[in-house]
């Protein structure tokens, strides 16, 4: 799969704020949106570009919400997605994630990463019970850290 740098598509650095990403998206979508190119002889190219812009925006916002800041995006460590739980520390001080998901490495492509990370919406009756259990686990781990 071809490497896709969403930040490059939107023309923003990887440390851009959310508002800067949104502003870049808005400016580009105004230019390339199909509705703005109805009479453009190159409207197919504009539509294709718009799809790339939309995909780039979606990817950045979803990655950021999963805790991936994109600071190491594109760096050659074999896994461009880093640790989605970046910053989370287990009780022994090692990095990782409390929920048994993939963590760093092991994802062949971004579809695999999304498939593993995807939770919540998409299942209309997603369980609030499991959310509550997750919050209780996080609090438990935080209390363990404080006691060390």
């Amino acid at each position, binding site marked *: 799969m071809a490497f896709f740098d969403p930040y490059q598509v939107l023309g923003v650095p990887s440390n851009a704020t959310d508002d800067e990403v949104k502003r870049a998206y*808005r400016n580009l979508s105004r230019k390339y949106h199909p509705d703005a190119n109805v009479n453009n002889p190159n409207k197919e190219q504009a539509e294709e570009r718009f799809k790339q812009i939309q995909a780039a925006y979606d990817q950045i916002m979803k990655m950021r919400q999963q805790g991936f800041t994109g600071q190491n995006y594109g760096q050659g460590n074999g896994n461009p997605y880093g640790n989605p739980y970046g910053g989370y520390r287990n009780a022994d001080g090692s990095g990782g994630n409390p929920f048994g998901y993939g963590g760093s490495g092991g994802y062949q492509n971004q579809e695999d990463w999304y498939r593993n990370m995807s939770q919540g919406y998409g299942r*209309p009756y997603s369980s*609030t019970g499991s959310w509550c259990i997750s919050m209780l686990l996080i609090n438990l781990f935080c209390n363990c850290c404080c006691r060390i």
Partner: protein
Amino acid sequence: MTFLIVLLSGLYELVGQKESFTCALHPAKKRTAFLNEATDYAADMNLILGYYHLLDDWKDEKNTAKKRMADRLRPDYEKAAARFPKQDEAIRTHLLELAKAEERKETDLDVVSGIFGELLAEIFAWKDDEWHEELHCFGFYLGKFIYLMDAYEDLPHDKKTHAYNPFEPLSRQKSPEEYETLCKCYMTSQISECARSFERLPVLQHAEIIRNILYSGVWSKYEILQKKKQKKK
């Protein structure tokens, strides 16, 4: 619906116009209305919801005044339904599903609030475009939150009148402190998913007002209820 107008106006950066009008309920002074595509859409949704609400009241309470109002509203309802048939169908079917869930005294909070969530999701997903899915997600979790908050507020009254309330089994099975903690947890989980969905939308215009509502304003009713409970103690 005002919130829907603000959200859609911010997302689509709609250009509107200002108009002066005389409110039928407040005729002394002319008012200013800000109109755009989103206000027209929200007005149609209000009409459709209002029409079905009147029909429900006629069906449940045999309230003839409500039946007469529904009949008067019918021509406008039909025009709105013709403009937005998908939303009309979704509202009708989900209200029916909700009535069935309440009739069988559904105990699963996710199921019963999810039905209302799906109803609001269809209203929020205005157009079939690149933002359809995200607006659907936003509306879904907001709908669940609204349903649960209303149920939480209505529980004391519903207990007295033996009316259906999805929180009733929980309030019986748990201690008051556990009940309050779990209710807060359930509602927080819904509104936090709603807020996450909002943060994925490229809304810059009106973003701060919307954040104020999502992170603080939605809890106003809850805080008033907590203060009343504290006073009673």
